[in-house]
């Protein structure tokens, strides 16, 4: 049932040109989503569990070079859910 990672929506966009591979985003993410090799100025961070993102923006706020942008998926930005469907089923 697990969706292959490359098909999952990834909200954490890292600009490879401005990322300085410092590791702060890995350090701060409360959800353990971002994995960055320590002490390696060549490799970019990997968003290993993109569907577990809380959209808190801590990664974006701490990035020293503004290399991270948090992007919201359609289902959050233009949500079509009927709220009444969240309010319980009644069994008689």
């Amino acid at each position, binding site marked *: 049932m*697990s969706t292959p990672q490359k098909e999952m929506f990834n909200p954490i966009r890292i600009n490879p040109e401005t990322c300085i591979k410092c590791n702060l985003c890995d350090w701060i993410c409360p959800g353990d989503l971002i994995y960055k090799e320590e002490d390696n100025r060549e490799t970019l961070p990997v968003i*290993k*569990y993109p569907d577990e993102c809380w*959209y808190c923006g801590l990664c974006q706020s701490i990035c020293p070079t503004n290399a991270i942008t948090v992007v919201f998926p359609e289902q959050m*930005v233009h949500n079509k859910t009927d709220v009444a469907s969240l309010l319980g089923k*009644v069994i008689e």
Partner: protein
Amino acid sequence: MTDDFVRLDTDVLVVGGGVAGSMAAIPALEAGLKVVICEKGKILDHCGSIGCGVDHYLTIMESGPEWDTPEFLLKHVPELTDGIVDMAVAGRVIREMPRIFRKIEAMGVDFRDRQTGDYYRLRSFGLPGTYHINFDGTDFKKHLGERVRKGKATVLMRTMVVQLLVKDNRAYGAIAFNFRSGEWTVIRAKSVVLAAGDVNRISQNASGLAFDSWHIPYNTGDAQAMGYHAGAALANMESVEATLTPKGFSCQGLNALVSLGAYFVNKAGERFMFKYDKKGENARRAVIADGVINEYLLGNGPIYLDCRHLPQDMLDRMEHTLQVDRYTLPAYYQQKGVNFREELVEVSVSELSIRRSGVYFRGSGLAVDTNGETAVEGLFAAGDCATVSGGISGAAVLGHIAGEGVVQRIRASTGALPEVERGTLDEVRARAVAHLQQKDGLPWKAYEETTRQTVSDYVGVRRNEQGLRLALDTLAALAKREPTLKADDLHGLMRVHEAKNIRLNAEIMATASLARQETRTGSSHFRMDYPKTDDLNWRKFVIVERGANGPVTRTLSTDQPLSAAFSRGNAAVAA
């Protein structure tokens, strides 16, 4: 995974590095005790439950007028909590508020408005005074974290505590694993403080995304679950909490919005909240969430947030404050193409969480006495996992009380810590290894989805006996499948443990909901088969404990403190 356990002996083990956990560590460190903090995330310098900064802090300041005194607020607490509250503990928390507020200021937190140099205090959520200081608390937690680091606490990050160690009803440590390194640690401690927050990821929301939640989705009732297994009593678990958010993003901000004057309108443009409460949008959170729920059920949706009438300076303040609490909210509105200053914003009811049922001072979780100690000796609880909850300041104050309680408990304790049985350690790790070795096991995401759907359908804002029994059957069947849960890696193993804790909390909530045969605080516990509030029979706590075959309940009049139900007696060490 490592082959053997790292062994740590300490004085105090704190589970959770959020506001409550940090504030519990501080008095212990000040008393010269050794403290180990296990933190599942990386939180020490940012607020746990809400990730970014704080935008408001509820406190008595004793500034002069009668309303700004503990006794005045305490008088209103029974009404604020619809009669279900531990007045002994709430009383202690409220009386300590001014002292703890000053202490946090002394740590370097500046609560004053940058422009005026004064405290900007607001009234919200039905409180009888302007107790909420609205401020830029981006650095709030950094100061608390700094004090903890300066005190030389040992902080284990990315470390999840999975089981408490208890002998003869005395807690003496815990077993934890680091899900980056795979290292297992067994910590022996003279006292344990559980401060791992509330329960999230338990029901559906508008976006359909499990990790899009009001409070931090990585708080998964770990303290409640472990405390339950250790023999502690829980209370108020039938009370559930929802908030109102922009539809599609379960984010913070409601307090700021209503206290700064926002309205809610339905599809007819009617400002309906006064139909539900004479305070309108300034009613308690549970009541305004309820109002919106009812409007949706009546077919009056969509419901909108309306800020268009507000003056520019208020809107500026609102815009700034909303980013403090959730950094990405302005970006969300921008992507959505909506300007909340000029347009209506459709709102939804958020997913549910188990914390404090939308009112202040009544918390859902581990029952504690006036020292913050649970029914298990040496096991303390504070913050959103305990039975007095009050946002950031509630966590700070009860956390500090628990820290002081720990110091008293340790000073009164003699004897050596028990040896940890090798069998216990091997068993815990063998279970974990089994999850990692499951080839075609049950994915934890699917298991959680079933839990969430069950809660949304039958244990959510509308409940009845048939639905609750069906929910309990479903949750019991899920429990049987737990050994087949599959973890792809160590991170997955951590999520598997979370998923189990979420399910257990849902089961406890359904059990408590079935027991309380009345409705109280609107949709925080709404029984369609018992739609009235029944003070004659139900001015009681519903206490849940681990029985031989699962959760069992009993009741206690709210005229008594919850500690009266503890079998260790109220032999609390003097405060």
